[in-house]
């Protein structure tokens, strides 16, 4: 172990989680069993859009080992439908009514239609296969433009149209104000030297963590419901399940397994499957478990992005950005998904469209349509990967028109002074974008690269360099979270001191690999002057942890750790007050006591000290002769909320070589420059960066959910939904240019969530830079050799594609 006890924050402390995870002792969802546990398997729709004409469950029910078979009609009067207020945003949208199983008709290929509960999972699968569902097909609504066309088939028949959500982010509240604003923006465009106008499309792709979803519920008449759930937000699940199933909240306990195999957003929504599992556990009075198959996962969730942006940028000849106009359109699937409803991602994506550029004015609108696909579910780089792709590509196009280096256009237009409020009303609290950018350029060696590029071009090889950058949320402040998700933004932590001088920390959020047990232990250890191994962290159990809105939006380094530090500060003051009393130090204030190296020391006379254990044991175990007004015990829950929303910032550069004959390309290098504020654990920060950028690359180059012309999902396995392998991606060089956040106790920022968002733009910019002699401009994702080859063929205009 390195460092003194005061140096834990910022030190490379090897993770506490790893011993169990490298020895097969992790406890993941599918490892949890209950005596007498039954297994549930869903029967899912073969059709994208069809009326259910009948369901024959007789063969399934007759199978030996089958305990129950249920359909939508069986449960629609037993379970309240969604939406329920706790998982419904305060944004003006239409919220589709739905139950865990389809009622009347199916709206996407893979929607749950029925379910089997059996003693053996193999038998449950046999029985699900034996259920026969009659369908009367309806027209497939397969893209947002046809969904919005006149006379389009309605996805939700009780709606007036297929619009779930639309918003004007810049024009004001009413139509008159919006029209006036649009005219003002148009004036800027009319007078601009340069106008870029492009349609940028981003395909449907997402996260697909290695562990799928699961739910296990156990009902007991006296204790109520205990549920183990793969989730990033157990406290929200608890409230929602309690409402839906009409079980009093105090009788509902949700436990997120200590180890979760990745989430990246997809384990944050309130999904329909757990509702049914819980309902069946209560109905049958026996524990019931559902372990999602990968096929179910890729059919039902992990699908995000899927946005189209008609983006216009006005600029001056010197590269100054003057105005932006964007019409976003998103395909949110059927929208039946608690908390997010498929449209929150495109909503936030539009909020974050302006990125870190200082736009004088803008006109930004988004419209989200429902279709016959599974609802978009959140994915890291929440909604903003498509808008950032559009923005970062557009900046390069402006640079090309100005005859400037794209890097220079970026630096020229970066927001130079913070705090700052964007044209979409996003607040940037602190940091130094220029410093991060200049650090990147110091590592980029742009002149050297241009020389190598020219040399290579002369030899018939095509090298390119690309830049991108991004502002990310560092936690989600209540100011944004309450309207957006009807949830509080504060971070919460309970710190409980043990009579033996150890510390227990309780976190209501539920991590999935981010290393919370280690980072918070480092922060708490530093606070109390003890060793991180003396800090034990419990996460995600609503029976023991304080309320938290979940492990989402980079809330750990920003909000959760800050709450833990505040709780430590509270307890340290109490320890100091009682110690001053015990030692009769009449003039001492809490600030006169230092917690270090396992001792609490009176700094005005270092001979006066107690071991940390003595100091806390006295208060917990011997609460006599206390100062007036003090009580025994040492436990405190703190709720941390910064006054304003907070951000983190990064900028990236990559280089590529493109083979113009095949459209295949190689990433030669990738460097990122970050402001993550005060780093708590550099290895964990670097791991987040490496992993996030590779997710962005994998999204950009390999992953795509494909539906055929009838809405059949063709990519519901890892043979067809391709993830990047180790041999497909580069090592990332991670560099830092930190500015401590003034609004968190440690100066830390939350990082990792939004980080993939500038990756597609950065990569495509490099590829377009390489192909600059041909004038290739990429506007569509994914970026695959086949599509790039087509662009090169078209640009070269020589030999026909087929020869």
């Amino acid at each position, binding site marked *: 172990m390195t460092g003194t006890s005061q140096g834990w924050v910022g030190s490379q402390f090897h993770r506490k989680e790893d011993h169990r995870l490298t020895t097969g002792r992790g406890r993941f969802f599918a490892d949890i069993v209950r005596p007498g546990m039954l297994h549930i398997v869903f029967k899912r729709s073969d059709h994208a859009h069809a009326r259910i004409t009948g369901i024959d469950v007789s063969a399934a029910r007759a199978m030996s080992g089958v305990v129950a078979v249920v359909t939508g009609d069986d449960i629609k009067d037993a379970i309240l439908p969604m939406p329920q207020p706790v998982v419904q945003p305060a944004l003006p949208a239409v919220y589709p009514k739905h139950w865990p199983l389809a009622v009347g008709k199916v709206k996407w290929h893979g929607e749950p239609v029925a379910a089997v509960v059996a003693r053996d999972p193999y038998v449950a699968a046999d029985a699900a296969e034996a259920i026969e569902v009659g369908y009367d097909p309806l027209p497939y609504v397969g893209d947002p433009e046809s969904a919005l066309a006149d006379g389009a088939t309605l996805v939700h028949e009780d709606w007036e149209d297929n619009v779930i959500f639309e918003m004007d982010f810049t024009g004001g509240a009413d139509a008159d104000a919006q029209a006036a604003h649009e005219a003002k923006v148009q004036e800027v465009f009319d007078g601009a030297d340069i106008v870029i106008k492009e349609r940028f499309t981003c395909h449907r792709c997402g996260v697909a963590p290695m562990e799928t979803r699961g739910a296990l519920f156990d009902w007991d008449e006296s204790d109520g419901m205990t549920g183990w759930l793969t989730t990033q937000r157990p406290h929200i699940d608890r409230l929602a399940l309690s409402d839906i199933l009409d079980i009093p909240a105090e009788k509902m306990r949700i436990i997120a397994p200590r180890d979760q195999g990745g989430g990246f957003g997809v384990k944050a929504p309130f999904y329909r499957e757990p509702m049914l599992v819980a309902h069946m556990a209560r109905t049958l009075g026996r524990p019931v478990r559902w372990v999602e198959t990968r096929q179910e996962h890729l059919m039902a969730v992990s699908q995000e992005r899927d946005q189209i942006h008609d983006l216009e940028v006005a600029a001056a000849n010197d590269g100054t950005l003057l105005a932006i106009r964007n019409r976003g359109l998103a395909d949110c699937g059927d929208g039946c998904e608690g908390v997010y409803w498929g449209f929150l991602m495109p909503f936030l994506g539009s909020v974050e469209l302006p990125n870190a550029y200082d736009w004088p004015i803008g006109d930004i609108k988004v419209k989200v349509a429902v279709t016959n696909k599974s609802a978009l579910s959140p994915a890291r780089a929440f909604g903003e990967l498509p808008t950032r792709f559009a923005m970062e590509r557009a900046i390069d196009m402006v640079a090309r028109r100005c005859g400037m280096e794209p890097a220079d256009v970026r630096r020229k237009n970066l927001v130079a002074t913070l705090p700052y409020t964007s044209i979409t009303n996003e607040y940037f609290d602190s940091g130094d974008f220029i410093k991060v950018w200049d650090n990147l350029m110091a590592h980029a060696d742009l002149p050297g690269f241009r020389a190598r590029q020219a040399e290579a071009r002369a030899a018939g090889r095509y090298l390119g360099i690309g830049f991108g950058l991004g502002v990310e949320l560092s936690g989600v402040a209540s100011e944004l979270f309450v309207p957006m998700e009807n949830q509080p933004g504060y971070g919460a932590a309970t710190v409980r001191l043990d009579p033996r001088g150890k510390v227990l920390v309780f976190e209501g959020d539920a991590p999935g690999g981010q290393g919370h047990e280690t980072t918070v232990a480092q922060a708490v250890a530093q606070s109390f002057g003890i060793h991180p191994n003396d800090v034990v962290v419990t996460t995600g159990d609503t029976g023991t942890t304080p309320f938290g809105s979940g492990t989402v939006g980079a809330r750990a380094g920003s909000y959760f750790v800050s709450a833990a530090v505040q709780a430590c500060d509270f307890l340290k003051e109490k320890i100091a007050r009682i110690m001053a009393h015990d030692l009769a130090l009449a003039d001492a204030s809490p600030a006169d006591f230092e917690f270090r190296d396992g001792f609490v020391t009176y700094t005005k006379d270092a001979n006066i000290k107690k071991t940390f254990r003595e100091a806390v044991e006295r208060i917990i175990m011997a609460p006599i002769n206390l100062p007036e007004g003090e009580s025994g015990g040492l436990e405190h829950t703190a709720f941390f909320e910064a006054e304003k929303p907070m951000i983190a910032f990064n900028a990236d550069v990559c280089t590529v070589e493109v083979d113009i004959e095949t459209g295949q390309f190689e990433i030669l290098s990738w460097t990122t420059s970050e402001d993550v504020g005060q780093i708590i654990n550099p290895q964990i920060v670097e791991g987040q960066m490496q992993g996030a950028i590779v997710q962005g690359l994998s999204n950009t180059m390999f992953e795509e959910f494909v539906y055929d012309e009838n809405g059949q999902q063709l990519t519901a396995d890892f043979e067809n939904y391709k993830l990047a392998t180790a041999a497909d991606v580069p090592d990332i060089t991670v560099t830092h240019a930190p500015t401590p956040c003034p609004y968190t106790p440690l100066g830390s920022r939350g990082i990792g969530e939004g980080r993939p968002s500038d990756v597609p733009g950065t990569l495509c910019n490099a590829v377009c830079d390489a192909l600059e002699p041909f004038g290739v401009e990429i506007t569509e994702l994914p970026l695959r050799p086949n599509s790039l080859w087509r662009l090169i063929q078209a640009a070269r205009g020589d030999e026909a594609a087929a*020869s």
Partner: protein
Amino acid sequence: MYPAPIDEYVRPATVSDALAALGRYDEGDAVFVAGGQSLMQAVKARLVRPRCLIDLQAVDGLSGIDAGADGLRIGPMTRYVEIAGHGGLGGAYGALGDAARHVGDRQVRNRGTMGGSLCWNYVAACMPPVAIGLGATLELTAAEGGARSLAAEDFLGGPLETAREENEILTAITIPAAAGNAGSAYKKWGLVTDALPVIGVCVSLEVADGRCAAARVAVGGLATGPQRAGAAEAALAGTVPGDAAAIGAAMKAAAAEIETQQDLWADSDYRKQLIRSLGAEVTRNAFARATGGEAGQ
């Protein structure tokens, strides 16, 4: 997902026991399992629903590589890892190692077999075009004790189709020795590293008097099943090793004569481009091996 119910698992020790087990079931109800790396996917997806699995792992004499003066004899149960690590498969047999080193991943190569791949004949597989490109002959043994031999190109039909009769088992793969200086090479392209081939091209050729005396060109990854490119073979004959234009023209001929399809991974025009670019590269590598040089990557 789980396999549909299976009644019986058997692990015969001899070819005749394996065929006898097969004979106890109606057609299609019993399946041979070699490495199982493709078959088990289909069994788990319930696309194949066998009543009996006949595991060939213990059958005597089905595994191993014998290199002799008249060519190679490869047991069908020989795993990719053994082919990839075999020291004697350069030159004329170079394509075998090119393919085996990049099939799937380490775990797949530790289980998957050459014979299994040929009998499954998946649309996107490496061994079918390699077997055709190398002029392999497949030896099939029938339950009645009879045996017959078929050229790989006659054995391999459209995707998932072979000439194997229900009562037959593949017992050997033989590859003839080359007449003079020969070399072969194989390369595929897929979206991610070592993915199933969108297109895979195998070229084997003989060099005499400084020119290509004879060539075989085979292409995999096609909806029509693995194909020979006869026009390309003819065009390569007489070509001098370093003649990039002639090699390019030959592969252009290959791309022109082969019907390609569109799927999730590539459109049909891009498949033709892959035939051209991969074909040129493997032809260069095959020439290099034939003339005693090292093949490029």
